[in-house]
Every structure is written in structure tokens, then in C-alpha cells.
């Protein structure tokens, strides 16, 4: 009886996983197709990869995307880290709750709202749409996730550690550099990686604030996909899937390290969207 339950459970599990991964592997599979369509596999070939690397426009987009991601994640991590420390140091619970709610506004807002409202904002202040506006927008929507990754680490920290450091003669800067930052480090790293993924993953916000001159990979893919199938996009997606895999593995190790060092084993809790 119980065994039978288990068997069906496993079948269900496998089935859902197949459904979840099928489209991704389908995409990757056809990137090796000799033919030009995502159907009727006519033989193995690297030619779409060669096309992709020869496509200077696509390569330019790839570079753009990574510059935007790294730059925005770096700045967002810095701002978010100090924001988290600020929230952590806020004593009045009322103010703290308001800060936390405001922090989460961009986390729950739909992409289109963020994109549209940023577009209005940038136009209002007279910022030319392009690289600058895209980076600013990416910094803006990555900050809350950094705060959400760093803050729990800070809250987990025994506040007596700060007292102890002061007691032993450390000044503010030394308390920060020798005790708080090393302790929060796993959270800071996760925040940075999450910020990178957010940036790489974003389409909607970029689409709104990108203007004509500048474009990222996802915007480019969108405009090409509207024209129909292009197997260099498949090749690109295979590449990006590989990249995601690497990022996930890095993230997994960071969060496992932090879970191990904080005794409480919370496992890998990821906030995505």
C-alpha cells in the first residue's frame, strides 16, 4: 500500500521535472541542428554556434549584458549592504518596519510597473535613455535583494559581538571591518550573485528604459524571436543555461557555507523573481 503510494509519487515527481526541463533541453538540443528550424533534426552541427560568434551585433549585446550586470550588481551590493546595516541599526520598530516595507516595494512590483515608472522618472529628470539609464534601473531593482540577503545575516549575529569588539578597543571602522563584514560576508556574496542574476534575467524593465542606441541580450532576443526562429538564439540559450548552472553552483556553495557556519541549517533558501 505504502510502496504503491511511493511509486506513484516518484512517477509524478519525475513527470513534473521532465515537463520543467523539456523545453530547455529542447532548445539546447536544436542548437546543434544542421537544419534551420526547431523541428526535424537533420544532423549534428556546430554551425549555429559559429554563426553566433560571428554575429558581431549579438556579441556586442552579450558584452553589454555582462557589463551592465557586473557594474549594477557591484554598486547595488555596496548600497544595499550599507542600507542593511542602516536598517539593522534602526532601533525604533516603527521606522524599521517602514524601511523594510519600502525596501520590498520593488521586490513585489510587477516588472512593467517598474519599467514604466522608471521611464517616466528618467524622462522627467532629462536623463538620456541608454547605457546609463539601464545601469541605473538595474542597480535600483537589485538593491532590495541585496538587503534581503544581508539583513538576516546581521540579525543572526549576536549583538554582543559588537559590544565585545568595542570592549576590546575597536573603533567604529574596526568593528565594521573586523567583525560585522566578515560575519555578513556570505550574505553579501549571495546578494551580489542574486543581483547579477536579476540583471541577467531582466527583460521587461530594460525594454522600457533602453531607448534606441543601447540594447541588451534579452531585448535583442525578444526582437529576433518576434521575427521567428533563429537557431543562433538556441546556441545563445545553451550558453546562458551553462552560465546559470555555474552561477547556481557558486550560489549553492555560498549558501551552504553560510548555513554551516551559522549552525542553524536552513539549507538553500533562494529568493528569485
Amino acid at each position, binding site marked *: 500500500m505504502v510502496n504503491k503510494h511511493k511509486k506513484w509519487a516518484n512517477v509524478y515527481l519525475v513527470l513534473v521535472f521532465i515537463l520543467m526541463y523539456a523545453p530547455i533541453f529542447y532548445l539546447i538540443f536544436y542548437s546543434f541542428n544542421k537544419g534551420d528550424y526547431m523541428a526535424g533534426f537533420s544532423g549534428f552541427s556546430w554551425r549555429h554556434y559559429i554563426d553566433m560568434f560571428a554575429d558581431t551585433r549579438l556579441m556586442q549585446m552579450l558584452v553589454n549584458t555582462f557589463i551592465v550586470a557586473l557594474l549594477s550588481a557591484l554598486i547595488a551590493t555596496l548600497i544595499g549592504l550599507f542600507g542593511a546595516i542602516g536598517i539593522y541599526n534602526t532601533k525604533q520598530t516603527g521606522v524599521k518596519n517602514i524601511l523594510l516595507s519600502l525596501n520590498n516595494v520593488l521586490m513585489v512590483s510587477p516588472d512593467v510597473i517598474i519599467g514604466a515608472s522608471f521611464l517616466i522618472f528618467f524622462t522627467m529628470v532629462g536623463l538620456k535613455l541608454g547605457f546609463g539609464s539601464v545601469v541605473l534601473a538595474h542597480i535600483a531593482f537589485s538593491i532590495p535583494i541585496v538587503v534581503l540577503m544581508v539583513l538576516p545575516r546581521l540579525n543572526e549575529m549576536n549583538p554582543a559581538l559588537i559590544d565585545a569588539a568595542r570592549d576590546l*578597543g*575597536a573603533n567604529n571602522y574596526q568593528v565594521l571591518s*573586523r567583525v560585522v563584514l566578515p560575519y555578513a560576508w556570505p550574505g553579501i556574496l549571495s546578494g551580489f550573485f542574486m543581483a547579477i542574476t536579476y540583471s541577467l534575467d531582466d527583460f521587461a524593465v530594460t525594454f522600457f528604459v533602453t531607448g534606441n542606441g543601447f540594447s541588451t541580450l534579452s531585448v535583442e532576443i525578444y526582437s529576433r524571436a518576434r521575427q521567428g526562429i533563429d537557431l543562433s538564439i538556441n546556441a545563445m540559450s545553451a550558453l546562458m543555461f551553462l552560465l546559470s548552472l555555474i552561477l547556481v553552483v557558486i550560489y549553492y556553495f555560498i549558501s551552504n557555507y553560510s548555513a554551516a557556519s551559522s549552525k542553524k541549517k536552513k539549507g538553500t533558501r533562494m529568493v528569485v523573481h
Partner: protein
Amino acid sequence: MAQPIIEFKHVAKQYDDNVVLKSVDLEIEAGKFYTLLGPSGSGKTTILRLIAGFLEATSGDILFEGQKINDLPPEKRRVNTVFQNYALFPNMNVFENVAFGMSIKGKGKSEIKAKVTEMLGLVKLSGLEDREISELSGGQQQRVAIARALANDPEVLLLDEPLSALDYKLRKEMQYELREIQKRLGITFIFVTHDQEEALAMSDWIFVTNEGEIVQNGTPVDIYDAPINHFVADFIGESNILPGVMRKDYLVAFAGKEFENVDGGMRPNEQVEVVLRPEDLDLVSADEGKLIVTIDDQSFRGDYYEITAHDDDQNEWQIQATNPAIIGERRGLFFDPEDIHIMRLNESEEDFDARMEEYDDTEEEGTMNES
């Protein structure tokens, strides 16, 4: 008298409307082991944090060797703390934790190494320099925390309930060792605890705190034998506390009878409270007793029997006896006049001390005459 190393003058602390410390005065002399003893929320940890500099006093002066230090930040005070949950830095190993204060001050490597070795020797952890904090037992972490604080050569070491997380046996052992370390280094220790047994065992001097005030201070023996009020009598050790009337000097009435005692200096027929420690009471045969009680219950405690009984006025009695009793039996209760301790209601500590001084002398004469 030498200048006290730490002095509080009318120090008060409040958060908004919540008063946690009401005008505390205290003096700490160099080189002694002090204990702040009180239930949780009584203000003892607040006093400690004010000395360490983690809190700022709302009013009053805190002096260190005669200098006002109210506004001095913790890192500039010659005082170090052993925290309740040790607060060892989890990202550093044992050596780095102990060396932290010295490396902040920019001391040389060889000096740091020598000091760390010395300190770990002092707390009996030699050879564990490279261990991670998470690999240590609770007792070992405790020792590292002590070594870390002492490595800064503080004038005063503050200990915030440092033994509360340890099991009974380890706690006993650490009590003894802390006392040893204090004697060896000759610096001042201020120890915070809610455990009266711990306080009595370790201290040269105890401050008993309750509801944001120091209610009594004195040597462990003073405080145990002559508690100032109901709270102290109840908090320190087991006691039988009964309402009574002081007929005149050396004569007190309680439990429906009058007894000779050794206290005086009160108004005739003043309402008082009478304290009798369970270990001072003896069970004797009914005709030899000063009071007759009926045994209600008893439990074996290893080295004695804890017996509860009631007298004919329905007062509850706790008695510690070496021999068992029979439940339901009527027995006599015997105690000496000097076992009776009288507490006046709402007596200030100053008046209490003055009265004690006066009648302690006569008490000694009295006992001498008797023998």
C-alpha cells in the same frame, strides 16, 4: 580609605518612561571580587553595562579612579567584559580571538604571541590556539572568553552571568577557578549572577539588587545571616519568614508565643518580620520544643531531609534535618535566640547598618556571658 576604583553617584537609567535603575550609589575597591546579585530585570546587568560603557546613564556620575567617565566610549575604558554567551568572534580561531584587543592596539607580533600563550595557560587551554570556536565545548568557550578579556590587562573585569550556560559540575569548577584567577592577578572582578549560591561561594562583597535598586550590600556571611528585608531573606537561601511583634529589646512574639532573641533598637510592640533559616531548626520531642509542629511532608535531598510542617497557628515551616521524620507526627521545634533574625518593615540600608553595628556588639557580649 583608599580611593575606590569605581564609584557610582546617584546613577539612574531610564528608557522613555521605563525606569531600570533608580539612583544607585556604590563604591568598588580595587583588588576584590564583587558580585551583583539579583533576579532578572533587577538592574544588575544595567549596572555592568554602565561600567563597561555600552549604556549611558540618564543622570548621575560614574567615576573611575576619581575621574568622571560618563562619556568615555567602551573602547577607551580600562575595563573588559566576559559576555553572557561569550560573544566569541565566529570568524576567528582561538588565537585570533584572544589576540583581538592587542591587534587592534597595533601591538607587535611576538608580544601578542607571548601574551596569548600566557593567557591560554592561565585558563588552562594551552595548545588550543588553532582551534575554531565552533569546535570548542561550552566550558572551553567560556575560558577563551575570559582569556580574551584578560589579555587586555583590564583594571576591572566584568563578568555578565558567564557561568549560566554551563552544567552544574562545570559551573562549580569554574567558580573555583575564577576565584583563583582573581586572586592571582589581584585585579577587581565584578560578577553578575542571579544564582545566590554562586554569589555566596565566590564573593568578597555582594550587592543585592531588586527593582532597579541596591537593597543590601555586605559580605556573604552578613547578607545570609542578617538579610535586611523580606526580599533578601527570601532570595538568598531558604527561609521561614513569619510576621511578629517586637515586644521590647530582646523579646519577640510570633506564632502565638514570645521568644528571647538578640535584636533590639526598635519601638516597643513594633510590627516586624521574623526569619528562621531551615538549617537552624531542630526537630526534638514535643515536650522539649519551643513550638509544636505537625509533619506534613518530607523529601530526601542527599545530605539532609527537607521537611515541611505546620504549627498550631497554621504557619508553614521548612526544616532541614539529618534524620527522617514520620508524616503526621507531632514534634517539638527547637532554635536558639541567635537563630532568630528580625527585619523591620521598610528599613533603609543605612539605618539597618547602624542598628546592626550597635547590636552586633551586644550580641557578642551576650553569647560570651552565656557560655
